[in-house]
């Protein structure tokens, strides 16, 4: 299917989206390894799954809209799902961790609404 010629602007755009998406995903993975405790670690893959996969999907959307007729809308649906579900999953995981009293590292324990 590569015999369809893609304008270089679009090609660039697609490449940028794909690369940014891959980069964010990489960062998310790194974060998962590097961060010290559950709560901080939770941040990394959440961002990666929304931003990273979102960018990749945008790239894919442009690509398939060009080489096929009409706009490729499936990716919109996927993105929608991801944007709705990823934050909620992260939220639920955080709640579960709090509920089970998973320990957080000392450094992050700054309670802004300190009740003392």
């Amino acid at each position, binding site marked *: 299917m590569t015999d369809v010629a893609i304008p270089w602007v679009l090609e660039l755009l697609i490449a940028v989206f794909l690369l940014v998406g891959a980069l964010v995903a990489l960062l998310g993975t790194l974060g998962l390894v590097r961060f010290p405790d559950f709560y901080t670690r939770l941040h990394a893959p959440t961002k990666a799954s929304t931003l990273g996969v979102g960018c990749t999907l945008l790239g894919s959307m442009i690509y398939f809209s060009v080489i096929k007729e009409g706009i490729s809308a499936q990716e919109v*649906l996927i993105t*929608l*799902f991801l944007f*709705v*579900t990823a934050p*909620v999953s992260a*939220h*639920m995981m955080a*709640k579960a961790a*709090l*509920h*089970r*009293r998973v320990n957080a590292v000392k450094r992050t324990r700054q309670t802004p609404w300190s009740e003392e």
Partner: protein
Amino acid sequence: MQLALIILVPLLGAFAPALRRRDPVWRLALFAGLPALLSFSLLLSLLPQVLAGEVLVYQWDWISQLGLSFALRLDGLGWLFATLITGMGTLIIAYARYYFEGKATSGRFYSLILLFMFAMLGIVLSENLLFMLVFWELTSLVSFLLIGFNWHSQGARRGARMSLVITGGGGLLLLAGLLLLGQMAGSYQLSEVLLAGERIKADPRYPVMLSLVLLGAFTKSAQFPFHLWLPHAMSAPTPVSAYLHSATMVKAGLFLMARLHPAIADTELWFNLVVPTGMLTLMVGAFVAMFMHDIKGLLAYSTISHLGLIALLLGLGTPLAVSAALFHLVCHALFKAPLFMMAGMVDQATGSRDMQRINGLWRYMPVLMVLTAVPAAAMAGLPLMSGYLSKKMLFVESLQVSYPFWTTVVPVWVTLAGLFSVAYSIRIFHNVFYNGRPLDLPIYPPRQPSRRAMAPLALLTLGCLVVGFAPALVYDKVVAMAVNAASGTLVPAYDFSALSVARWPMIMSIIAMIGGALFYLARNPLFAIHSRLPEVDAKNIFEWIVDRAIAYSQRRVYQLENGSLQRYLALILVTTVGLGGWALLRFDQWQGPIALSPVDAMSVFGASVICLAALGVVVFHHARLPALLALGVCGLFVTLAFARFSAPDLALTQLSVEVMAVVIMMLALSFLPQRSPHESSLPRWTRDLTVAGIAGIGVGGLAYAVLTRPVDSISDFFLANAVPGGGGTNVVNVILVDFRGFDTLGEITVLGIAAVAVYAFTRDLHLKERVAQIADEHWVADPHPVILSMVARLVLPIALLVSAYIFLRGHNMPGGGFIAGLITAAALTLQYMAGGLVWAQERMLTQFRPLIGGGILLAGVTGMGAWVFGYPFLTSTFGYFSLPLVGKFELASALLFDLGVYATVVGSTLLILANLGKLMTVAGPGKEIG
């Protein structure tokens, strides 16, 4: 057709009393009496034909491959028994109308007795041996219900169980015997078996077959030592005892011996098996009867003795022995049934059956006394009575035994037994009606039995007299044809005038009568000796044996099945490896001719992840959540593998199954302890590792061997025919809903059953320990967070849309009812998790069980729709249509089928999930989830 009617009328009649249980007894008796009478008169109407020697056969093939057919046969022997059964049954039904006066259980009695009549008629009228056996077992079963009629009494329950074990066990032996007999004769049809006597007796398997058949007959006819069940069957209501345990069922064994007489009898082995058994039974029954204080007990043992007598006659093999046997059988039915009826009346009048207390009833019931005198005299064998003749016939036959040793033993033996039978006959009459005055009866003065209740009794008594006065007439008209049928030849007419002048039999009779009277006079010292003997209750011994047997088998079962899942798995795996290994011993070529595909990085990576995750499950299995997650990883990578090797349907299915499986497993596992202890020792580790390793490597090796060989499968046919035959380009879906639609129908049925089983198991389960765990008062203990529940509601329509999309396109592109169902289920599960069980349950539009049932029904009905157009089950049709806006689209009847699949999947998954979820809540929601 008339033959079929004879046995079917009681069966159909059995429904009426059961359905109209609340009606007064007389009407129920009418409901029951009419069918019995109808059968009886049908039989009478056939008498001329039977007398003429015709054998009426009615045949309707059932499973001809097994030699099993619904075949009836009416000849002299069958006619005699069938007439006894229906005639006696009618009288018993009439008698029971008074016995059950004012009792609520009469409806049950009447329908059971008709059912029993049906089974009994089936035995005596069957033309096919296997068919006869079905009825044989049926009589055991109905008899079990009738003996245990008063199920609240322990004695009745035990007696019922005992009789079922003995007669039912005998039935199994008989089955084996009849199968052998059928093989030896080359047919299960009686007409052919009866003609094959020579061949059967020459067959080397004859002794085995004969022993099995006779064991069946002996257990049913209460021959020693299987007689023990009969006295304990007396806990049944009296009409039952009178009918089953004197006139009909116990005679089934004798009937069988008479029926098969031409085919299997009159060999030395037959004589040696039947005669000693009959003699022992005759003597034991007659002797013990004398010492029974219970009227029914005495009658039971006397019945045993008479059964032994008839068996003895059937075994003798002298020319006229069969005539004597059948003649005595008729006499016995005629005198034993009225005696039982008398026992029932006395029991109801005085509240007791103990002959040490019931005395001198002649003052209160003179009519009953007169009516009892005749059958009692007949039983004793006094002159002019029917029993006198039949007993004398026995003596005559006993003198003609030609086997050495037995020539003297048999006559002496039967004279002695005759002596005892005279004694107990005198006792039952004298003790009940004379012998002083009643001693502290529960009901005093005794109630007057109703005159009309005595009508059946009077009729039977009259019968005794008729046989006594005109034996030749009765014999010629009724018994002779049965004898001819039983012996397979024309037997000369019995010469009754010669009987009265025969010298030795006369002397034997006189000895028996005088001896019996003397024995009775000496009863008091004898009773005293008897009461000092240790009491042995066969029922207790039987129960002891049963208990021991149960305990033993439980121990044995536990040795194999001790609740350890590891052991079960190990057993299954070892068996598989053993069998498979044995088959593979000579298999040396693992590598097939197909070349291996090149290794690429992605495949290696995926395979290693699956391996590592599987290993992870093992390593983490003490902590359930990580283990479950590792299992999920395995599943997801399998999904990827499917997607990679171009099986998108499988991938989609696997993905949605994986999601639901993890959710349900998580729910189910939460009921188990959160951590399992480390308890495996090193030897067990080694053992488990070895077994699992060999099994895993074996499966891997097999897969390798199969995948490297060219397989000529049916898939090419499916690929070629999916579009022309099924109208779909998605071959997988076409296979599911069309080519192999029957499989799918079976699978969704199983799925539905499994779900309903989970529902049934958990419905009444309360897990009290599940209440409130760690620190639920903590501030995050918010079971249904707002964010989640709001978003879940938002997601639902989108998910349903996806599900509908997947469903509709299923026929041509990856998708279909199964996947769509799982997606819908997942979306609804989310609602349950987010909003809570009660919240979600309130909003469900339907219950789940109707959904499951409806789905299966829809699939089934769609399949049946093909019949309307003359196609086989589950043939699908399709066509192309076009609508404005939508464009051209395809409609296939398979879509409806798929809809059924969809509904079943959704219903089953949610039924399991919601019911497991219900267990998590403290008290469960107010109403059932189903």
